[in-house]
């Protein structure tokens, strides 16, 4: 039962699925944060994402999945320099992971047995050019969060410890999930996520029944279920690939840029990251839908996920920031 539940078989939760697909179209958007109730399929969706992503071309023996042999870090002892196609890495960062596991550390085995100083790459190296997934991200220890912030911003992992001095590329898309009841996320880390979505249990009975039926079919009638939905997954994958090609050609009218700015000013979001993410996400959506030009509808569709976590929090606002964004979008875009 170790194959993940297929992405296309997830019922409902459109906002979450859209956000994940868009980061696959443009990894530059900078990750997704999924916050929500228990038992709503957060982790399932992230794990399903792996099967959806197009494979990457990488140097076979490179520990950081470099695309060219020239880009491989000098400390890596390369065996074969052949380019091979491998699935986009989706690396799980477990809560209990130590700093050593995350950034990499001295290779203890070689140090002990051969008395050699060698670097053993950590999770960040493996996640390069892929995804780094943190379940229960709000419970992550502070010093690991600091590390991640640093690396996520610079795109490079620098290890200066235990007599090692090593750096390697670490560009990855952060995907976090968590339950807000168990603790809040630090604003610095919150800001690093491009998109944030809130998921809720579906209220519609038909939808709930469908969830249970599919999950049950997945467990009992595995082969037939997978056969049907892997084809669906493949369709999404093709669309993602086409969207990636189309992405650079999307035209962005100046009026839309002004809309972006107006929206962010009206919401009072901190910094300019909001505008940039909003624009990028809207373009990715336009590409995914096969359009050539960005329109207000695209902005409207992505604004809640791109902006809702960048607002100053009003603790007495019961409605939540998603509603505030929607209200402002209606006011500004008419």
């Amino acid at each position, binding site marked *: *039962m170790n194959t993940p539940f297929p992405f296309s078989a997830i019922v409902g939760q459109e906002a979450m699925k859209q956000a994940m697909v868009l980061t696959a179209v443009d990894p530059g958007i900078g990750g997704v944060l999924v916050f929500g*109730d*228990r*038992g*709503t*399929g957060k*982790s399932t969706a992230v794990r399903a994402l792996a099967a959806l992503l197009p494979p990457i071309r990488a140097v076979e023996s490179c520990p950081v999945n470099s695309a060219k042999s020239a880009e491989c870090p000098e400390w890596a002892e390369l065996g074969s320099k052949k380019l091979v196609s491998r699935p986009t890495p989706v690396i799980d960062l*477990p*809560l*209990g992971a*130590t*700093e050593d596991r995350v950034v990499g550390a*001295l290779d*203890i*085995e070689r*140090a*002990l*047995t051969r*008395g050699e*100083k060698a670097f053993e790459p950590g999770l960040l190296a493996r996640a390069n050019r892929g995804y780094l997934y943190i*379940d*229960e991200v709000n*419970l992550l*220890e*502070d*010093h690991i969060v600091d590390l991640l912030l640093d690396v996520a911003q610079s795109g490079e992992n620098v290890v200066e*410890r*235990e007599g090692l001095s090593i750096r390697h590329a670490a560009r990855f898309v952060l995907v976090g999930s968590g*339950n807000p*009841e*168990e*603790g809040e996320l630090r604003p610095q880390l919150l800001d690093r996520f491009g998109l944030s979505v809130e998921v809720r*249990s*579906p209220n*519609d*009975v*038909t939808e*709930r*029944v469908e*969830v*249970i*039926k599919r*999950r*049950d079919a997945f*467990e*009992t009638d595995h082969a037939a279920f997978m056969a049907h939905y892997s084809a669906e997954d493949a369709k999404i994958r093709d669309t993602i690939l086409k969207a990636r090609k189309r992405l650079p050609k999307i035209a962005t009218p100046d009026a839309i840029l002004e809309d972006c700015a107006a929206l962010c000013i009206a919401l009072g979001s901190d910094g300019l990251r909001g505008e940039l993410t909003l624009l990028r996400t809207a373009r990715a959506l336009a590409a995914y839908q096969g359009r050539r030009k960005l329109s207000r509808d695209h902005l409207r569709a992505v604004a809640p996920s791109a902006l809702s976590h960048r607002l100053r929090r009003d*603790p*007495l606002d*019961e409605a939540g920031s998603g509603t505030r964004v929607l209200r402002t979008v209606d006011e500004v875009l008419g």
Partner: protein
Amino acid sequence: MTPDADSWARAALCLRLLLSAPGYLAGASIRMRASPDRDRLLSILQPLNMRRIHPSISDEQLFGGLDLSATLNYSQVIENKGILSDPRTMVVGMAERCGGDLAAKLAHQMDRDIGHCLIALDEGAEPDETLPPALAERLPFHIAPEGRMPKDWRVVPAGTLSVTPAAVSASATDAETLVLLAAQFGIDSLRVPLMALRVARVHAATHKRTSLEQTDLEVAACLVFPHRATRLPQAEPENEAPPPSNPETGQEAESDASSRMPEGDMLVEAVRALLPPDLLAGLVPAGTGRRTGGDGAGQKRKGNRRGRPLPSRPGRLDGRSRIDLIATLRAAAPWQPIRREAQPNTPGLLIRPSDIRLKRYVEQSDRLLIFTVDASGSAAVSRLNEAKGAVELLLAQAYAARDHVALISFRGSTADLLLPPTRSLVQTKRRLASLPGGGGTPLATGLQHALALATQTRSKGLTPTLIVLTDGRANIALDGSTNRTQAMEDAEQMAHVFRAHGIQTLVIDMSARPQATLKALAGQFDGQYLPLPRADAQALTGAVSAALQG
């Protein structure tokens, strides 16, 4: 059958099913204090070969890690296996003390669905002390038998199952019935009906059936749903509630709706009969929120002195921190051959300052603001609404500082704990808005309640701070008599007790003119006094935050 015996019979059924397919069902929570009865119950689970884990277990024990001594002996990396490496049955003692991070790790392991089984022993005394929700969510059974164990109580093991539970076929309507039923009882999570389906399958398998029958569903619903119910189903299912004949469930459902109607009702009745009697009291309005309490975890403070251990960090010994010997040795170990080459004549281990690892602990300590609000007639006339506004503004600040708040109001001849310590702003706001006014001023009684709460929460590791909002016209004494002098004396008495306990206090005078008696009272508290004649809520807040920071 008496209710007690009935609860024991249900416990027996849970255990029987659990014994048949531990990995498939993933476990149970057992809410009982340590007792011979519980030992007996656990001894029945003995065949599962359980491993005990405790709430402060380290990651290394759970997930495995480097076995240092063996590694050094054999000069090659030898890893310890963690408890979670292989599918097994674990017993978590004192699971109500289990923190959110351990719960998350265990929950993640259970989600992998490789056959772990978790028995959580919940020894909580208060209704609030329960399992972390992340764990409770994933455990199908909740075993909480009442009264003594009946003499003839026993569990008949089903033996080896001839039918694999996963192979038991379930019709589409079976799944639908369970989902609808869960919805009727206000159970949001979709994991729950899935678990119920699994339980039903195991039940069918123990009866050597290959397809689900009505009784299987009934048993599953009765075992999995009652303790998670957040509301009672409407007696007469209207279109609003999801009744079995919901028109939205598609043609398939419509076609056999008539045949399933009574069945759905029967199931509802069966589960309803098992709902705990105090359910109504603990019910939260559907869809508006959830239970308060939870794991009771305060805000965590990291340090190197006390609390639960965290992974150690490199650092220097400065006389205040403690060394983590094992981690230090581990850091030094790989370097021994290299360092030995440089200093062949030095005996013993070669440890450098950079190897030093320091212990770190996380401590749970948090401030609790106890608002004790005078809602008597004299206060209500002019200032109660102002006080409410001020408390609301203070709450926003308390939220920012991650403080807990509790709300006590006193009026007439009694005081009420309107809100036990919580961080939920929404709840506090709601309770505050509905705070009624009028009646006498039993200041001492209000203080007495506040004191009880303060000492109780302090023993839980919170730091209580008292904020009294009153107009100081105490006229009801502790014994309930209307005697102004006695009432004031009693209040002073209480103030002395507060001082003896060293509880920080702030007295806010909300009468029209500053009251000298209240100022004297604040002196008895050894606390601060804030006269606020004609203040607006904003000024009150500013004053309080300034006083608290000072």
